[in-house]
């Protein structure tokens, strides 16, 4: 068990080191997220004021879009250098490869969200500081659920045709429960009369789905990637 964690850690660190050198993913993903926010700022603002109750939904849509892009790009990079196959051939347990890639993607998305959340707060006048820990918990749990399934699917699709469009086509339906939980919880926090009970309930639901998804993904990753 500790070997798996150690191997996962090494793989994650490898990814982060590669990313730190080029900073390609962080720059492009952040700017993509900001571009989305710009479009939403025009789409969901009426007469100079943001349409009420949309900030939560917008935040999660941007996370989902940016996350899809980041996932696709991470594994495209692996495909171009054929390192995924090297990883799978190495004497490393399959779950470790999955967990390592998941950790790297999560850290990338965390960095993106750290920038996106304040921008949403400013552009859509959302009270992001109202319940910081609860909001962070929702974001963490939701992003984890999304990334857990996303890492599996992106890895699976690395050698498939039409992978760019198939990733969202397959990923979004599966992660809808997670997105719904995130949006409803965030919306409950941002509402004029905040409903922290709903937010906490959504957080519990998110954690539950995270458990289910990670369990399935860990089990499925090995058989699917071995060809």
């Amino acid at each position: 068990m500790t070997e798996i964690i150690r191997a996962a850690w090494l793989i994650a660190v490898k990814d982060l080191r590669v990313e730190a050198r080029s900073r390609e993913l962080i720059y492009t993903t952040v700017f993509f997220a900001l571009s989305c926010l710009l479009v939403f700022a025009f789409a969901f603002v009426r007469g100079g004021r943001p349409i009420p109750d949309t900030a939560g939904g917008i935040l999660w849509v941007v996370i989902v879009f940016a996350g899809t892009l980041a996932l696709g790009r991470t594994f495209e990079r692996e495909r171009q250098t054929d390192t995924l196959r090297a990883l799978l051939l190495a004497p490393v347990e399959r779950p470790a490869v999955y967990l390592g890639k998941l950790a790297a993607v999560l850290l990338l998305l965390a960095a993106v969200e750290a920038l996106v959340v304040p921008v949403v707060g400013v552009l859509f006048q959302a009270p992001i500081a109202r319940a910081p820990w609860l909001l962070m918990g929702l974001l963490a749990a939701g992003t984890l659920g999304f990334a857990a399934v996303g890492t599996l699917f992106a890895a699976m699709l690395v050698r498939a045709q039409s992978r760019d469009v198939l990733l969202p086509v397959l990923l979004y339906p599966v992660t809808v429960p997670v997105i719904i939980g995130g949006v409803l919880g965030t919306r409950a926090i941002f509402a004029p009369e905040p409903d922290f009970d709903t937010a906490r309930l959504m957080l519990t639901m998110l954690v539950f789905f995270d458990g289910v998804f990670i369990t399935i993904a860990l089990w499925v990753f090995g058989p699917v990637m071995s060809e």
Partner: protein
Amino acid sequence: MRVATRLVPVLLVVAVVMLARAPFLIDAAPYESTMGLVQKIFYFHVPSALVAMTSAIVCGIASTVFLIRRRRLADHVALAAAELVVVFGLIVLVTGPLWARKAWGAWWVWQDARLTITLVMWMLFAGYLLLRRFGGAGSEVLAAAVAIFGTALVPFVYWSVNIWRTQHPTTDVVATLPPEMRWPLRWSMLAIFALSGALLILRTQLERGRAELEDAYAAVEE
């Protein structure tokens, strides 16, 4: 597989005969007190939903077997089952709103958990079919992974309506039906399950035939 093939005509005859009688039984069934005539959509909406959920489970089991043992028959069954989910799921998703428009006044209610999660399950299996069609070589294995996630959703589809009470009737309704309604429902259920069983076997056969054809073409080229 040979046994299954022999079952097909039996199942089809049973299904066709029962389905021919069904409209008369459904017409004779009493009206429901608040919903009236439109409630009679129930007699094929519910069996279609159950077929869709059962097929999703069959697809998941077949996909699991395929992932572990790589048996081609399991893959064929998975594909056939996924198509049944999409076809019968579509029936559910069209007859449901038709019923809802009359009974609730709205075609679709996003706050209702069962509607949303059924739509999600349908889209997932539609995505499964897209992946198999456009994913290129090796996509059967990938699709099997997707199917497993889809099957994990089925319990949520079934129990969502008991946990999150909004619009859709609960599962209790079927258990507590008056006998005049229970009988036509059971009839339709049996008929539609017989039909879907026949369709599953036929579709699996078709897929096997296609696989044999590809093998044969490959052999010719050698």
